[in-house]
């Protein structure tokens, strides 16, 4: 049975990877945009916060903002499965729902981790971002990516159309990154924004990345746990939505 499960999961991962690679435009865009963005905005952040803090803010702010926008890759792929009825079709096979989710999620997880590694690597190699605590940075990026996967999947199950999904990502993503202090440091924002910032997963991502860079393992543990909480809650919402199905009978 585990062998069969591995075969099915492998088939799904291969298939979904192929689907992503067949339409590489959105991925390439999500990879290149943050590099341009961080290069152009770093001088502004440096002028406001100094060289080290400014670079840190520019890299992490860009990473969080653009990884929020990359939610569209997750949600879009799930919405497409729903619209094309392939999700229902997969449910009629022997594949376990976890295998289907893994097949869908693993390639996207790879893409998102790749995007973040690219931004961090660019920050380190070109902008001089110090990377002294990779053992903390790795888990922080993984927890943030899992939270994004969960949120993206939940939105993908709730959205009724591609335009609804786009609106949710563009407006919601930007709002969450701003609210979380990714684009502008929280210290420079009004008091009420600082008070509500912790409701944004972006806030915890920024806090986690700063803690990882500073080598604060205790703070990392807390922020990573909160991000995993977001991942779990959103993942459960997605699973419930998908379990309900979208077949003809389910719509009656």
């Amino acid at each position: 049975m585990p062998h069969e499960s591995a075969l099915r999961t492998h088939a799904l991962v291969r298939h979904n990877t192929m689907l992503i690679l067949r339409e590489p435009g959105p991925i390439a865009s999500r990879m290149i945009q943050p590099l341009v963005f961080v290069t152009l905005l770093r001088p502004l952040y440096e002028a406001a916060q100094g060289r080290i803090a400014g670079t840190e803010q520019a890299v992490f702010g860009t990473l969080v903002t653009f990884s929020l926008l990359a939610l569209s890759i997750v949600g879009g792929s799930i919405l497409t499965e729903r619209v094309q009825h392939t999700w229902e079709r997969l449910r009629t096979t022997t594949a376990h729902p976890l295998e289907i989710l893994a097949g869908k999620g693993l390639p996207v997880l790879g893409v998102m981790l790749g995007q973040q590694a690219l931004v961090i690597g660019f920050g380190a190699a070109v902008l001089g971002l110090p990377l002294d605590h990779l053992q903390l940075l790795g888990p922080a990026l993984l927890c943030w990516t899992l939270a994004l996967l969960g949120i993206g999947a939940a939105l993908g199950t709730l959205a009724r159309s591609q335009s609804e999904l786009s609106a949710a990502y563009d407006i919601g993503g930007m709002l969450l990154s701003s609210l979380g202090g990714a684009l502008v440091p929280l210290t420079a924002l009004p008091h009420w924004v600082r008070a509500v910032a912790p409701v944004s997963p972006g806030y915890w991502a920024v806090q986690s990345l700063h803690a990882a860079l500073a080598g604060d393992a205790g703070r990392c543990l807390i922020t990573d746990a909160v991000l995993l909480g977001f991942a779990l809650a959103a993942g459960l919402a997605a699973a419930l939505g998908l379990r309900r199905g979208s077949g003809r009978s389910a719509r009656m």
Partner: protein
Amino acid sequence: MLSAHALVKRFGGTTALDGFDLDVARAEITGLIGHNGAGKTTFVEVVAGLTRPDSGQVTIGGTDALRTPRQARRLLGVAPQEPALYVSATVRDNLCLFAGLAGLSRRDQRARATALAAELLLDEVLDRPIGLLSGGQRRRVQAATALIGEPPLLLLDEPTAGADPQTREALLDAVRARATAGAAVLYTTHYLPELADLGATLAVARAGRVIARGTQRELTRGLPGELRLRFEHPPVLPERMRDTAVLADGEVRIPSADAPADLAALLAAGCLPTAVDIRRPDLDDLYRSLAIGDTPDQEPVHAA
């Protein structure tokens, strides 16, 4: 192979299945017919594990499909009514995915995809994205995803809807071949001649129940056929035929449950036709009489 008993499924105030019973044996093709809303697709969704019934039992190959649905789905190939294919992927990619999910190795996936594509006249488009295929080609790919694991039970929900004659013929040949090899096939359609071509037994659904079950011959026995007659001059028909006879396309058409006797009565009355055609009752007559409800008070027929 498939056994469903006393299935009930309600959606709010709508009862989609209301005591639905159906058995399909190995090597049997069963045509499930009925008007829209009769419960056909809900039944297919229940068997496929997409919808859970409020009550009732479903077993597939002796496995309880409601308690252990994944185990039951090992025996199942489904072609849903609505197209469910990855449009940016090629035909081969789609077939290989479902072959992989059926447990085939990578090499077997490709071999089976190639063979099935040839059988369903898809070999020339095997490496073409689904989005570039015609409706008929997509229908065949959809059916192929159900066939590729060679399951012992096939659920084909209107697999030829909108298909051209060539497509339909290729699909029917493939279905017949699976049944000959021992697979049980549940086939829903509105194209009734297909079921005659397939030699299918019939299950007629109405209002969430199977109201008639048997072979075509059994179920059409007793239904009126039709006498179609041409005359040189307008005839004076026997009185008992005047109310039911109609004139269409230059023919006098008379519903008849006993064509030889009625023809004899016409001749005895001096009606001498220049041409006679006796049309036997077919599936359309059955469909009309049972499913649409020309005879709404008719008792269920269980001929098989």
